[in-house]
């Protein structure tokens, strides 16, 4: 079972709240959900929308066409009427609105819609768009939002303006009725978002009236035996993972879509710790600093890490560009620091609120000179949580910066994660060679067999750091002999990591491992392919790359040997992961499924592309779904 639901409206008009209520309604019935949020770079007024998949099984993608659209304004209908296959719930009052009068819509979009309606001999209005959808078999559900609000106000004997706040629940109610969800359940969930009794009452009244408008066509009964689950978006998954993993310093400069992570940590900055030996509980602070810029953010995090604590920063492309110098210093000085890199559309400020996978090569090669760097990419929400702990461990074990890649899609989408998938209790802390009682003649960069030196917190021993080349004690040295030795010591740590980190953890395989078709992907598209594997008979193996440095060369090389089709599927133009595979294994992709329009990989378009590649051997497919 799989139903998809969409809600749209102007940013700042309660779309977020409505989507949250709806998500809660279905997830508390025991269903799995996966929701994605799309928005413009603005505060109020521009079109924003949520797409939500509901399923009785775990789900990690959104389709290209939704079953139900909830809309209040004209733009939502115009933007999405082509993407709906079931029902459009719309506001009767906006039927007559002309395409050209919707100011908030981009002119390119308006022009496209006008042309389409013209070619279908339909008026260039909301009504025309609705008619177009109707011709394709979509059912229309008109709602007179104002009339319902007026009636509720009259019955409750309150001013109409008071009822405004519950207007959003009407659209939700019509869709939950369509889904066969009972009225009381919606009233209870929606009511919990309001503190005041009056609003709860108004909600119940509005829901009642909305329920009279339509008949149930689906049936979403309460699922019995649903496991314990958490509702997590990517930002929060990483934030909670970091706190759990012992992060105690986070600095950031505000940037979409990274800031939410830091703001979550700040809101939960005092944590409780339990000494497993004595059972004593103690409170401790996580310091979160909103820095003056990204240069400060990364260097504060690096400075904090010198004191022996777990430290990180979070940013996205434009911020990462500024951080590169600091990351180089951390590499030179063997500082464990985690940089969570939320990838959005570039170059420059690009598409600030849209997704992308185009910064992979940049993250991997960031910094002048050579230094070891670990790059991890999470594909799903539970991975994002576990990887937050993993990256903190790797940073300390190999004493080097670790870059954790999370795309906007993962950051801003949310899903229900079963408790056991988070691995709480199994996750551990690996602090590497951290020593709290260093010897008197302590040398921070002491030469060792594996290249990793014992690391003492700044203040516990006499130590020197410099971004210049240095000797074992951290003193500047340009001696060519020392340069050779210490350079090799640093670089050797990557070889050690390659030896120690199991390749199976750096790359995951799904589907028919013996198939002649292999899809190579990474990040959020992984979930889309996993869903396709579960729901179709398409024959392919899915190779999810989780670590790009150290790259699991032997595994990938062996796995790709002799395959007929190697399909690089990623959210960029250059097929960057494909290039990294070629660089490390010599094996080149044969086919490509690429997308760079700023929208996530959508399940149906990916399935179609995959069919074309596998069945018709199409070499390259450019995906263009999403509005």
């Amino acid at each position: 079972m799989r139903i998809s639901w969409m809600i749209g409206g102007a940013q700042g008009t309660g779309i977020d709240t409505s989507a949250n209520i709806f998500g809660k309604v279905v997830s508390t019935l025991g269903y799995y959900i996966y929701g994605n949020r799309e928005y413009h770079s603005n505060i109020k007024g521009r079109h924003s929308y949520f797409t939500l998949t509901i399923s009785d099984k775990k789900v990690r993608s959104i389709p290209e066409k939704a079953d139900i659209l909830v809309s209040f304004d004209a733009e939502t209908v115009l933007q999405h009427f082509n993407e709906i296959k079931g029902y459009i719930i719309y506001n009767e009052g906006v039927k007559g609105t002309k395409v050209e009068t919707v100011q908030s819509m981009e002119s390119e979009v308006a022009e496209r819609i006008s042309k389409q309606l013209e070619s279908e001999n339909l008026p260039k209005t909301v009504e025309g768009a609705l008619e177009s959808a109707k011709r394709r078999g979509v059912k229309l559900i008109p709602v007179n939002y104002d009339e319902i609000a007026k009636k509720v106000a009259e019955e409750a004997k309150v001013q109409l303006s008071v009822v405004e706040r519950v207007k959003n629940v009407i659209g939700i109610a019509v869709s939950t009725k369509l889904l066969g969800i009972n009225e009381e359940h919606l009233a209870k969930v929606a009511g919990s978002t309001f503190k005041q009794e009056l609003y709860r009452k108004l909600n119940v009244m509005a829901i009642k009236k909305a329920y009279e408008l339509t008949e149930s066509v689906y049936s979403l009964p309460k699922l019995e035996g649903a496991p314990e689950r958490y509702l997590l978006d990517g930002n929060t998954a990483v934030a909670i993972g970091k706190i759990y993993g012992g992060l105690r310093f986070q600095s950031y400069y505000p940037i979409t879509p990274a800031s939410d992570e830091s703001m979550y940590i700040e809101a939960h900055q005092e944590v409780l710790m339990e000494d497993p030996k004595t059972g004593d509980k103690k409170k401790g602070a996580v310091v979160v600093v909103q820095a003056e810029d990204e240069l400060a953010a990364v260097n504060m995090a690096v400075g904090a890490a010198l004191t022996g604590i777990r430290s990180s920063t979070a940013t996205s492309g434009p911020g990462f560009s500024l951080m590169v110098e600091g990351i180089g210093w951390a590499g030179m000085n063997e500082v464990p620091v985690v940089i969570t890199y939320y990838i959005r559309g570039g170059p420059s400020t690009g598409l600030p609120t849209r997704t992308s996978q185009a910064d992979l090569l940049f993250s991997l090669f960031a910094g002048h000179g050579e230094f070891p760097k670990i790059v991890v990419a999470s594909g799903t929400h539970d991975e994002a949580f576990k990887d937050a702990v993993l990256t903190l461990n790797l940073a300390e074990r190999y004493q080097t910066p670790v870059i954790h890649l999370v795309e906007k899609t993962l950051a801003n989408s949310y899903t229900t994660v079963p408790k056991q998938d988070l691995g709480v209790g199994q996750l551990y802390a690996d602090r590497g060679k951290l020593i709290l009682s260093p010897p008197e003649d302590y040398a921070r960069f002491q030469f060792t067999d594996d290249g990793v030196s014992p690391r003492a917190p700044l203040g516990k021993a006499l130590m020197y750091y410099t971004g210049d080349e240095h000797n074992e004690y951290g003193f500047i040295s340009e001696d060519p002999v020392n340069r050779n030795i210490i350079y090799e010591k640093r670089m050797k740590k990557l070889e050690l990591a390659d030896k120690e980190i199991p390749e199976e953890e750096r790359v995951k395989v799904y589907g028919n491992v013996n198939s002649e078709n292999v899809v190579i992907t990474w990040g959020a598209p992984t979930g889309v392919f996993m869903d396709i594997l579960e729901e179709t008979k398409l024959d392919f193996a899915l190779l999810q790359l989780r670590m790009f440095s150290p790259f699991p060369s032997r595994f990938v090389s062996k796995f790709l040997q002799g395959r007929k089709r190697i399909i690089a599927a990623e959210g960029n133009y250059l097929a960057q992961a494909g290039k990294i595979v070629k660089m490390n294994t010599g094996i080149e992709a044969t086919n490509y499924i690429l997308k760079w329009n700023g929208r996530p990989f959508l399940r149906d378009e990916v399935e179609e592309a995959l069919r074309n590649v596998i069945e018709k051997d199409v070499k390259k497919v450019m995906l263009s779904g999403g509005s």
Partner: protein
Amino acid sequence: MAGHKFHWNDWCPGCGNFGILSAEQQAITELGITNNTVIVGGIGCSGKLSQYTRIPVSGVHTLHGRAIPFAVGIKLANPSLEVIVNGGDGDLLGIGAGHFVSVGRRNVDIVVILHNNGVYGLTKGQAAPTLFRGMKTKSLPRPNINDAINPVTLALASGYTFVARAYAYDVPHLKEIIKQAIKHKGLAFVDILQPCPTYNDINTKEWYDKRVYKMQDMDPVVKSESEMQEKLKKAIDKSYEWGERIPIGIFYKNELVPTYEERIKTSAPSYYDNYPAEQKIEYEKKLTTIIDPLLEERKVAEDN
């Protein structure tokens, strides 16, 4: 301690940095804080001071302009450390100007020492942000066409709660100022007038010797909220005195403004009792943070 052995010092003979280093060594030693002091430097001649301390204090030689953020990270993670930033005028007021101003808004309990010689020494004498317009030092191909920043005024305007000026060749006075800066609760700034014998042939030792004088009539200490405004105004006025007479000494001192560390405490009361560098985040690899309440908030349950 082979690696700790004193090695070649890159500073030119006669460099003001020797006086600054000497004063810092004495101040730190006399205060008895060698074991928990960290000197953080940027890039350039000043930045290398963190490598040349020669007394048992740790040194962190960072990036051009970024010494302040590094220092802030160190201090906030471990507030028991004494953190002293050394930077040149190009470092702190050019490439790092944003950090110099921003740290003022935070009043982090660290010391910022400016090696003010008007030039970028290590890259052969280009004009630094404190060099006045029209000046042509011997290293410049033509007279400087930029106006100069007044570091003392800027520090005062940015919120530094201890602001002083000293002279690199008056080591005893400089040492006292640095001691006061370290002891100050809050963010301290010391502008050190420092001749560059190689590239700045205008603001030389002879030039400064004739002009610097110790302020006698200044009472820089803010004793109550009500006199804050007035003392700050007086300090700003005084900071503009420059030319035939150049005042050195303390311009402003205010311990009534809460430090950033105290501000953290308002949202995380355990901050001082269990600051980040002291926390035990694991025991035999087992994570100690109790995460259940955060996950509980995210739990999908019908009753929420």
